[in-house]
């Protein structure tokens, strides 16, 4: 999951950052006028060829002798079949692209459709606030799992975010390129380790250690926090590093010029400047954590109860779905789909939050730039 989010966010940032970043330098060089020209010219340029083509085709269709005069040319701009081809290809591509929308729509529609009888059978409010989950009694309250998911995710963020952000700071501010040549592939590889392998590692290594440290069987939130923080750290590290790298060098130099130490620069200047990027990274890490299934399932203890201490087993939405889907039927199955719908909504809202933050950021960065330019 992180891999794609990385790319997603990276490119988002690229599209958002790159122009503004470039423009900032231009502003410094006093070339504001160039920048304002750049955007419209880009747009027209991308579409110019097609416009030209159409015009060419139109004029060619009007004047028949012209194509006859040069029959050997392979310039097929003129024939109607070419137009049809281009149009049908464009349609095909559009359909392909639209499949993504269709996919998301279908996923939500199906999960919601399957979960819908829940509203009539149990009632949405009862489902969300019920604390009892018992298949035998046919009572399904999702609160233990919703809270469990948030407990597990919250703890793993508390453990993982500082570590990940510090690593990112190290990579961006301290490490030499040679050190980064080792660290970056390692982080990417860590992101690629399948969750089931991390879960297996958790079961055979982390669980006994936790059991020895805090007593009990070793299954519970603490173990899940450790395992999950391993899973989300690469995501947060990569994205935070991108955010830190996008901070212009000049800001740092200004800080150094004021006599600040490296750490003062990092803590008082660089991290605040990259704040929104780091928050973005954390939110996406949270998205990954909340959807994480196998690793959590294997170490969390899966007891459908409210949080009762760091070593008392709890359960999450994802682990409950995997554990019980195989044999569920009737209301039980509906309730599991209800959990999936909640998960879906949470992950969608996280994506939306990131989008809104990005929009906010572009607004913010635009304002001072104009002030600085004037």
């Amino acid at each position, binding site marked *: 999951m992180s891999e794609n989010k990385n790319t*997603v966010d990276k490119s988002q940032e690229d599209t958002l950052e790159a122009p503004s970043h470039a423009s900032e330098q231009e502003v410094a060089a006093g070339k504001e006028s160039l920048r304002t020209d750049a955007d419209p010219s880009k747009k027209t340029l991308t*579409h110019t060829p097609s416009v030209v083509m159409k015009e060419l085709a139109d004029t060619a269709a009007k004047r028949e002798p012209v194509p006859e005069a040069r029959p050997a040319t392979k310039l097929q701009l003129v024939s109607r079949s070419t137009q049809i081809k281009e149009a049908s290809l464009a349609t095909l591509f559009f359909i392909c*692209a639209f499949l993504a929308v269709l996919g998301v729509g279908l996923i939500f529609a199906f999960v919601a459709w399957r979960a819908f009888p829940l509203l009539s059978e149990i009632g949405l409010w009862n489902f969300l606030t019920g604390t009892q989950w018992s298949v035998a009694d046919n009572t399904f309250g999702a609160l233990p799992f919703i809270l469990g998911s948030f407990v597990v995710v919250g703890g793993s963020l508390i453990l993982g975010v500082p570590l990940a952000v510090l690593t990112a700071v190290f990579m961006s501010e301290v490490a030499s390129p040679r050190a980064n040549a080792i660290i970056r592939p390692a982080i990417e590889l860590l992101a690629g380790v399948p969750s089931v392998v991390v879960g297996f590692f958790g079961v055979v290594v982390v669980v006994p250690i936790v059991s020895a440290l805090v007593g009990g069987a070793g299954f519970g939130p603490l173990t899940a926090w450790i395992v999950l923080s391993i899973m989300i750290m690469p995501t947060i590290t990569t994205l935070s590093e991108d955010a830190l790298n996008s901070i212009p060098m000049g800001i740092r130099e200004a800080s150094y010029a004021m006599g600040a130490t490296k750490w003062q620069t990092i803590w008082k200047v660089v991290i605040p400047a990259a704040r929104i990027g780091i928050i973005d990274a954390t939110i996406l890490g949270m998205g990954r954590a909340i959807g994480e299934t196998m690793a959590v399932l294997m170490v969390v203890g899966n007891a459908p109860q409210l949080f009762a201490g760091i070593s008392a087993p709890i359960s999450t939405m994802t682990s409950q779905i995997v554990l019980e889907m195989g044999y569920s039927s009737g209301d039980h199955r509906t309730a599991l789909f209800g959990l999936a719908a909640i998960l879906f909504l949470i992950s969608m809202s996280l994506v939306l939050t990131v989008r809104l933050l990005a929009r906010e950021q572009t607004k913010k960065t635009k304002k001072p730039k104009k002030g600085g330019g004037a």
Partner: protein
Amino acid sequence: MSTKTNKNTQNANAEQRKTGMQVLKEMKEQHRESGSGLGRAHLNNRIAMGVLWGATVITIGLLAVILIYVGYHGLGVVLQDFPRFIFTWPEGVNAEGGIWPTIVATLYSTGLAMAISTPIAVLAAVYLAEYAKQGRIVKTIRFAADSLASVPSIVMGLFGLAFFVETLNIPLSMLAASLGLSLLMLPITMRATEEAIRAVPRYIRWGSYGMGATKWQTVSRVVLPTATPRIITGLILSLARAIGETAVVFLTMGIAINLPIIPTDSGRSMSVHLYLMAVEGINLPSAYGTAFLLLLIILALNLSARYISKRYSRIDNA
């Protein structure tokens, strides 16, 4: 695209950093001469650098511990009468022996998923990067792709079960699993391809248009071939993701061990096998071996993606 810009900024950063450091050094010397106390800030700085080092070492250490632990236990299992573990069937009720059918099922389903998702993702990316006018539709599609990328895999699995298996009546099989996996891979491949296409310099396109080529000719003969290495890198990474995926496969492929021949055969993938072995906890050697092979495959895929992109960027720079 991003790596290149990153590199550029990094180089720039490195140079500028040096100047920053020089300034800092001068400042320090000044302070030392004047005798004023920079001592505390300096101490703080040292502690902080230590913390940063520590955090990084912990992060890298975690990866190392996982790799070494799984490798240490798994290598022995795999190497014991060497190809036996890879090429024989599991025997008996505790799945002693090899894991051949699960390897086949994994490669089968991910291969099929790649075959399904790649053309769609590539063409969709072509649309977004080359054809679409910036507007509401593109925004919607991009948002949908982002959302699709963030849908928890278990929800994807449930959808696969509800839609492909129960509604379209495809049995629990390679086909159902690979349809689910392809939904998972679609946004990754799409994003990578789009970035790759956007990274192709504009003037190359102008050259093609200037020769009188149509849009499609330009895309198919100039843009896509140029972007191919990056697209392949993206593909490999999405493949690595699909191979390690468990939740989707667990719900849509069936869990019985079977050697799949046709797309509607069921089977058990390596990740599911590892999960079952780990939670059953009876035949742990087999679990270690499977985990080791799984890591090895993903490691190989990651490294090859890295190699391709590196080679490509070298050509690009030259």
